[in-house]
């Protein structure tokens, strides 16, 4: 068959989010790939120029609806950097605990979608069922299930509800038991291993050169985790390890995310144990000073960054958002060339794409 370009179009039942992947196939083998994003562009950076700093909080949530607490927190850090605010300790520990719960929920949603792509409905249902536990916890803490709007500039919105610590520790125990069950379902089945081992290899040099961050980078062997390298909030006081894996294939990315969930359980336990009593919020000034602020956090999908320019009024002059998926998806060509069409789903699913943040 001659070589032809195929559109895994904007309308497709199994691509996560609204984007287009053009692949050039020669029979069943892929020879070239070109991702096209931009179908979900909502003009968020421009919207933010016309809103006050407080009004942008719920909008920053909706950048990536899969891990919304992470983006809300990133925005708060950026503006706190601009205004020079010091967040009280209780708020820092509470933010860390909520962020790690959000990380577990995001990774579980990735697992569910990944299993559904590979044809295992059972993986989808089990992962979503366990994600409900964490979403319920965050619901009792913040009041909403997906777009939390929990962090405020200067702390968190309100204090923990009663029984929150007890329920979170129970949820962590439950999660650790369930991850061992997942090993049976996924790694115990030779079919899953056949589809993932050796597929979509991204070498260390390629990953570093292309600017890939997050679990795909750590799965290629590079030890780079912003929580350890440029720690923020109360991460310096918490004892945990970033996970890496030497091969760069789909199985490595899967392993890295599963182990990250276990590490998150450890982090939640330590954060809730060490949380001191006290204030959870300080008053933030309304008008920002003239200057710039920068925030960088480790999002479940990679390194997220925001940059804000203040001009003395209560609205930002410019808010710039750096999304990890926007950069990682440009590595698609390196990862896809040479594999079969049927591997596209496994490879692109392994990157955990959330187009909301890529297109802003």
């Amino acid at each position, binding site marked *: 068959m001659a070589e032809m370009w*195929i559109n*895994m179009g904007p309308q497709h*039942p*199994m691509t996560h989010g609204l984007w287009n992947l053009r692949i050039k196939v020669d029979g*069943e083998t892929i020879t070239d790939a070109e991702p096209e994003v931009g179908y979900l562009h909502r003009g968020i950076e421009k919207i933010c120029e016309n809103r006050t700093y407080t009004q942008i909080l719920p909008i920053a949530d909706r950048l990536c609806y899969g891990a919304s607490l992470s983006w809300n927190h990133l925005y708060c850090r950026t503006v706190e950097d601009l205004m020079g605010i010091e967040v009280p300790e209780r708020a820092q520990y509470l933010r860390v605990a909520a962020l790690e719960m959000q990380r577990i929920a995001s990774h579980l949603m990735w697992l569910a979608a990944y*299993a*559904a*792509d*590979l*044809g*295992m*409905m*059972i*993986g989808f*249902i*089990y992962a979503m*069922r366990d994600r409900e536990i964490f979403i319920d916890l965050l619901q009792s803490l913040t009041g909403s299930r997906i777009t939390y709007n929990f962090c405020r500039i200067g702390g968190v919105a309100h204090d923990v509800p009663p029984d929150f610590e007890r329920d979170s520790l129970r949820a962590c125990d439950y999660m650790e038991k369930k991850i061992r069950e997942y090993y049976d*379902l996924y790694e115990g*089945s030779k*079919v*899953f291993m*056949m*589809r993932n081992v050796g597929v979509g290899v991204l070498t260390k040099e390629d990953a570093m050169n292309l600017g890939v961050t997050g679990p795909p980078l750590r799965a290629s062997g590079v030890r780079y985790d912003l929580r350890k390298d440029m720690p923020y909030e109360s991460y310096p006081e918490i004892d945990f390890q970033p996970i890496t894996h030497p091969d760069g294939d789909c199985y490595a990315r899967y392993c890295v995310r599963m182990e990250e969930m276990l590490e998150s359980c450890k982090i939640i336990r330590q954060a809730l144990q060490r949380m001191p009593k006290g204030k959870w919020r300080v008053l933030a000034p309304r008008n920002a000073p003239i200057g710039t602020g920068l925030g960088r956090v480790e999002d479940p999908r990679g390194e997220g960054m925001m940059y804000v320019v203040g001009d003395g009024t209560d609205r930002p002059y410019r808010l710039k958002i750096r999304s990890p998926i926007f950069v990682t998806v440009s590595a698609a060509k390196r990862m896809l060339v040479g594999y*079969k*069409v*049927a*591997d*596209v*789903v496994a490879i692109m699913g392994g990157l955990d794409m959330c187009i909301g943040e890529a297109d802003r």
Partner: protein
Amino acid sequence: MNLYEFSYGIIHWLVDLVNHLWYWLGSWLPGGLGDFFDDVGNFAASHSNISVFAIVLEAIIMFVIILVNVLNFIWIDRKFMGRMFDFYGPYYVGYRIGGWLQNLADGMKLFVKEIIVPAKADRFGYLLAPVIFVGSSIAILAAIPLSPKFAILTSPTDTGVPAGVLFAFAMFAIAPFSILVAGWASNNKYTLIGGMRSAAQMMSYEIPLLLCVASVVVLAGGFSFFEVVEAQRTVWFAIPLVIGFVVFIICMFAEVEVQPFDLPEAEAELVEGWTTEYSGMRFGLFMMTSYLRGYCAGALITALFLGGWIGPSFIPGPIWFLIKAYIVFVIVEWARWSLPRVRIDQLLNIGWKRLMPLAIVNLMIAVALKSLGWF
């Protein structure tokens, strides 16, 4: 009393009833017409005529019974899958009988959908493909007996036709042809690829399938279902031919297109499957036939490997057969929902490189056992 005699009796009674009225009517008519009526009545009551209708009634009875079982299969599938996935299966429709009426509700829904034929589709192929697919799958039912007395293809002395197994597998293997036609005639790049993949999958798994059947036939000594099941009176063939049993089950997975081998049907990647362009009851027929082939697979496994209708006599033969077929089906479903999908090239690899040598080894074992005189 076997099935033929039962249906013969019913048709005979029915024809007699109608003939009473017919002759009485004819007696009121003038001469020539009255004779004509008498001739028609005599012809209707003649043996050859009644036997034709008796066969038709047999087929209808068998078809209805198997269809009800297929509905049961669909219900068990959804309930069992539900419990595996930690939710209820069908729950509200037919609340007191556990949601069994959901099947009928779904069927009615499919009836009222709009039937669309794509404008540029090849009309003849498009309309022919379901006919072949459904027709050939139902024809398998004629060949598989539920017990010596409950069979369509049989002889007057209940010994079965000499080529029952061959006929069943021949009908089973017509399906890839109709899938190709359906994929091509839909005028859709993706259904074409799906149809080709499906045909490749089914054809490459026919070979280990038929090799296992050959090993069973070697041990049983004949191609008829009755001979095969009778040869299992002492021990079921699943025990000496264990390798063949496992290979046969895996090949049946691929033939019936259930996960982990359902690539043509539920493709996530590129293709939506060869049934994309069919809507309404045509699509419903495809789904039903898919489950019907699942039943046939279970029935064939039972008949060839698990002893068919042989069991303690407090339960009649056909019920044993159905019980065993249900158990096989439940195991197939269990494996179906637990495993991910296999990629097309890995699938063909498994078929040609792993299963065929195993099937050949199995055949060698069967020949060895037969020549040792143990069967």
